[in-house]
């Protein structure tokens, strides 16, 4: 995925590739005298995903400094969690990265399970289903990022195509969980309920149709001159910077840093699947686009393997101290009634201690650092949101670029306010 060879201008700052129309414009425009001007972008701006404010200093069209300010979508996730039982936190996690809620559900559940010491006892079927819903969420996450990114550069058609395909997946998850976006489908110890009967055939059908959509989008974007002009060589991040700033996920991998939690620290049943981790070579916006596009293909590979290997069995742990007993038991036996009551009212009793558990979220390493004091609610529930480092590095990446470059650069970082600001 190296940048295409073309003429390069000698400009200070990051390497900038100039092609065709742009080159002509540059030649026509004489260097007009300019003085520094502060420019405020956001917090509400049509080209910003979510509310974020950028205080820029520009000379003409060129950015000299960029101060990216986050926090406009702060919802006190961590503080609220201290006042909810362990199970009541699932709806809050839905609202972290709200374009891939299942991944947050799974990440949180695995952290609590690790603290409970039951992480090796989760039924195999539940683990496979967690992989299925997680990879579906990863695809919806990437589709949203790519579609919106293209739309902001004027390519409306791929946006509609990708969101059409995303909607197929949302409808599938809605059929499964009852909610289009705020699924709260995962539970500590397993899942709320089993897959619906037609889940697997429907998913196979959706994957087949998605392949066509992805081919269309690939044709519309990847060799599109206008698109490439805006993406190639813009917002370059070096591998060293990626490591120093803690970049993970597609943004980190676009720099060539081949770190994927699913490969490097396999969890659930990821070690049983054959899939590749795509990496970029330049670390520019186009690499971030290309990595995401390829990751969708890899996720579909995982989905197909997981559907093939999906075992039968229970969907949740058989322990009335942790998982709610079936409703028929709850209404008809005092044992299950008490277990249900205690889990709902007092919360699961998680032993005192602390744990850090991390999974591959849509934007990279999604970590939960949880401290329990032995009661039915967390003493502390901290999230490591993967898009915070990606937003943080914008202050370094943006200076030297033009104002118009902010749109694709910010878009490809894929800041999700719900996750970034918590």
């Amino acid at each position: 995925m190296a940048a295409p060879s073309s003429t390069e201008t000698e400009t200070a700052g990051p390497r900038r590739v100039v092609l065709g129309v742009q080159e002509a414009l540059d030649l026509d425009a004489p260097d007009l005298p300019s003085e520094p001007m502060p420019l405020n972008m956001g917090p509400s701006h049509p080209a910003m995903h979510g509310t974020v404010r950028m205080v820029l200093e520009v000379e003409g069209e060129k950015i000299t400094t960029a101060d990216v300010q986050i926090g406009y979508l702060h919802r006190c996730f961590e503080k609220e969690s201290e006042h909810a039982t362990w199970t009541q936190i699932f709806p809050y996690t839905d609202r972290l990265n709200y374009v891939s809620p299942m991944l947050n559900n799974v990440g949180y559940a695995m952290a609590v399970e690790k603290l409970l010491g039951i992480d090796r006892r989760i039924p195999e079927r539940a683990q496979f289903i967690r992989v299925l819903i997680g990879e579906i969420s990863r695809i919806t996450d990437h589709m949203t990022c790519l579609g919106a990114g293209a739309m902001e550069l004027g390519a409306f058609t791929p946006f509609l195509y990708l969101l059409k395909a995303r909607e197929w997946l949302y409808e599938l998850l809605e059929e499964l969980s009852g909610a289009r976006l705020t699924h709260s489908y995962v539970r500590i110890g397993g899942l709320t309920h089993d897959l619906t009967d037609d889940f697997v055939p429907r998913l196979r059908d959706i994957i087949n149709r998605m392949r066509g959509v992805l081919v269309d989008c690939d044709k519309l974007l990847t060799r599109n001159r206008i698109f490439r002009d805006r993406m190639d060589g813009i917002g370059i991040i070096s591998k060293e910077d990626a490591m120093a700033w803690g970049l993970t996920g597609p943004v980190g991998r676009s720099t060539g840093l081949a770190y994927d939690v699913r490969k490097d620290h396999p969890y659930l049943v990821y070690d049983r699947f054959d899939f590749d981790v795509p990496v970029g070579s330049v670390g520019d916006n186009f690499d971030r686009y290309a990595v995401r596009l390829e990751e969708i293909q890899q996720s579909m590979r995982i989905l197909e393997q997981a559907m093939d290997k999906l075992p039968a069995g229970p969907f949740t742990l058989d322990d009335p101290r942790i998982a709610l007993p079936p409703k028929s038991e709850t209404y008809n036996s005092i044992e299950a009634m008490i277990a249900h009551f205690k889990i709902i009212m007092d919360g699961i009793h998680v032993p005192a201690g602390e744990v850090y558990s991390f999974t591959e979220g849509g934007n990279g390493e999604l970590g939960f650092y949880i401290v329990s004091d032995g009661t039915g609610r967390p003493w502390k529930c901290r999230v490591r949101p993967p898009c915070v480092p990606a937003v943080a590095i914008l202050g370094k990446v943006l200076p030297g670029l033009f104002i118009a470059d902010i749109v694709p650069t910010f878009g490809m970082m894929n800041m999700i306010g719900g996750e970034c600001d918590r």
Partner: protein
Amino acid sequence: MSVGVPPPVPSSPFSPAVQPPSSAAALSTETVTVTIDGRVHQVPKGMNLLEACNQAGCNVPYFCYHPGLTSPAVCRQCLVDVKGSPKPVPSCYTPVTDKMEVTTNSPKVLDVRRQMLEFTLLNHPIDCPICDKAGECTLQKLYFDWDAKLARNDGIKVRKDKVVDVGKNVVLDQERCILCTRCIRVCNEVARSPDLTFVNRGDHEILTTAPGRRLDNPYALNTVDVCPVGALTSKDFRFSMRVWELYTTPSVCTGCATGCNTEIHSSRGRVHRLVPRQNLDVNAFWMCDEGRFTYKELHQGRAVAPRAAGSPADWDSALDDAARRLRSALDAGPQRAGIALSAACTNEDLHAAACLAFDHLGIERVYLTGRPAGWHDDILVSADKNPNTAGARAIAGPKLKSAADLAADIKSGTLGALLAVGDVFDLPADVPLGRVDALVALASHMTAMAEAAHVLLPLSAWAEVDGTITNRQGRVQRLRPAIPPPGDSLPGWEILSHLARKFGAAMELDSARAVFAEAKAKHAFMKDADWGRAHLPVQLRFASSRG
């Protein structure tokens, strides 16, 4: 909890009955060596084995054992392995002996414990959603901690009577009863009134009142506290509130001079019940039914806004009016002015009142008022129905006159001005309060005195303030605010310091704690008292697992 015991301590008013059977006093000072779960412990000789295990941190569960009662060893939850014994022994019924080797968590013990729970649950109704005890139920807790297996039996449960009106304050659900006998022992050993018994055998065994009796003894609601399930419920509390929603605040009962330690259980600005809190030196684990109902007065007939000359006023003008009336009366003749101190007030309020009246205004007539005396017994209830008579007597000094004197002085017209601090319930109805030229009342309730007062200054009550009260033993015990005060009412010390400012007297009182410190420095009976730690209200669902 704050505790200050002044010398000389009055002779203990308590019968041995409220003392727990194996309280520290009853144990010998000799120690024996016992091995519990492989670790060696030194415990007093003759100590109950269950207490020894739990003191060693081994967490032996129980239904029928209660630290304040004798042990019948009927529930079989506390069975442990003792080396040399062919079968597990009930630890609550076994005294510790030297060189005893005990295992509390062997597979056999855990299995027996689980089987006993399964057996207990066999006929237990599926009532948690409608049961008042749910959330603080011992059966729920022990099932969750020690059994946690789903039912193996789906047979028909034995049906019994679900609503038995056993007494004035208590309702019995015989299906929920697990036959632990705690309530029977509370009646026999604490209330000394054998009102309850079992009849029939096997799974037809039921709890019922003894022939010709009802559960109407003054300590009947303690049976509800000790009931490990929801078999006995309080008529007053049942179906009014789910327990896990309640917030708990440690406090002291203000129903009489005994000062039983309590927990106030409140939610959204309302107190829902009072329950006893353990204090072996005062009330052990118990309190009387009358004391539990004192919370009702918090929400009835309260004085909520200042009044001056019969019409509502803001604080500033009411205080101005109060100061003007008292000042003109004092100018006319200081010997005709008096102050009435209610023995229901906190030490802090009384100290502030004494400072204002004696040091700044030069008032010499001081009366002790409050609630009239009532019935008593030799268990917990005192004839003195005021919570702070000891503190009021010590703070007011030797010149203290009685409520009868106050009535006589008003009738004869010798009292021209009166500052009444706290509620006055013990004046006869025919006292012509109109004869007092200047009547200023600090009152939390609309008593006759508050109605007749020229200026009424609304007072916050005991569940709304920080402060201390002194019980009949001379113990200084702490009150904490559980709910916000109604309307514009303020704590007494705060009203009195505002009033002092109107007289140009500077009393630098800025918190209850500061007044406490000042009073402690001044009065010998408070010298050992301690303000205690801060306490944030805890919701019962998170106040560790109850039951």
